[in-house]
């Protein structure tokens, strides 16, 4: 049964964007790529920018990077027992919220499925061993 708090007008294929700092990325040796630390997904009410609203205003995801940006697919977020809400603000009409309890399992899953849009500078590389 759909969660009444989940705004289904945000389709599963929609990308939701979360801005991050340069220091929020680590090298994941399992994925063999840089990814955000799961700590950036700790908040039960997590601010995001909704890709569909962004597109309606002819803005590019890179426009909301501050300074870095990752994207998640709405369907991937919902698969982790999270709901998505539109929450436009004066500063950001595409603002939204990903709401739900962020257990370690949820945080980790979100971090692993996050795609880099604007990466950190300098890029994160594996440590020399």
């Amino acid at each position, binding site marked *: 049964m759909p969660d009444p708090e989940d705004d289904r007008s945000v389709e599963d294929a929609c990308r939701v964007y979360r801005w991050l700092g340069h220091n929020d990325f680590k090298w994941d040796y*399992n994925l063999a790529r840089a990814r955000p630390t*799961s*700590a950036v997904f*700790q908040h039960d009410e997590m601010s995001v920018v909704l890709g569909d609203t962004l597109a309606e205003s002819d803005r590019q995801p890179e426009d909301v990077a501050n300074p870095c940006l990752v994207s998640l697919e709405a369907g991937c977020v919902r698969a982790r027992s999270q709901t998505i809400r539109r929450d436009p603000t004066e500063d950001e009409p595409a603002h939204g919220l990903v709401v739900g309890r962020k257990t*370690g399992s949820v945080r980790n899953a979100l971090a692993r499925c996050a795609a880099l849009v604007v990466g950190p500078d300098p890029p994160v590389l594996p440590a020399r061993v």
Partner: protein
Amino acid sequence: VSDVATLPRLSLSVPAALATPWSAISTRLRLPTAPDASAIPEGTRTLAVSITVGGDSAPPVSDSVGATTVSISIAGEITPAWLGETVGRLNRRASNASDAAVVRAISTLLDIARPNSSPPFVSPLDGRGIQLEWSQGGLDVEIYVSGSGESHGFVHDLEEHTELEGALSDVVQFLAPRMDRLDQGRLSA
């Protein structure tokens, strides 16, 4: 590098919630004796600890834990190497962490890591907490330490498709037979 012998020393005030785990850890972490409070700069609390790992005494570590910043200096070379690196990362990345979180994070590492382990990635958490994490050897390991020093963890074994989230003792038990993978993970990645 400071001469740790000349630094003011302070016994760390450990919250009651940490008392039992800390007692167990104190066999390896020996806290110094009485502080000279007058010698401690305002806004800074200093402690000096001696660390013994695997039966060998390491050189002393001096930790200055400020009210708003964490500044930890190391006197001498620390063995194992990951401990010194982790202290540096705590300084740089979790400077607002509480005393209790810093103590618990370091003591947790002493429980989990081995001499050849790699240092964890360190992130700040809300409420002056700390997150420690490794992603290597087919394992994702995350340790969450709250500002009050409470901790729990999450382990995802990507090879066996199993997850565990719970008390630190459960995480340590789950990791024990997998530590070789965690220690060697960077080399094979």
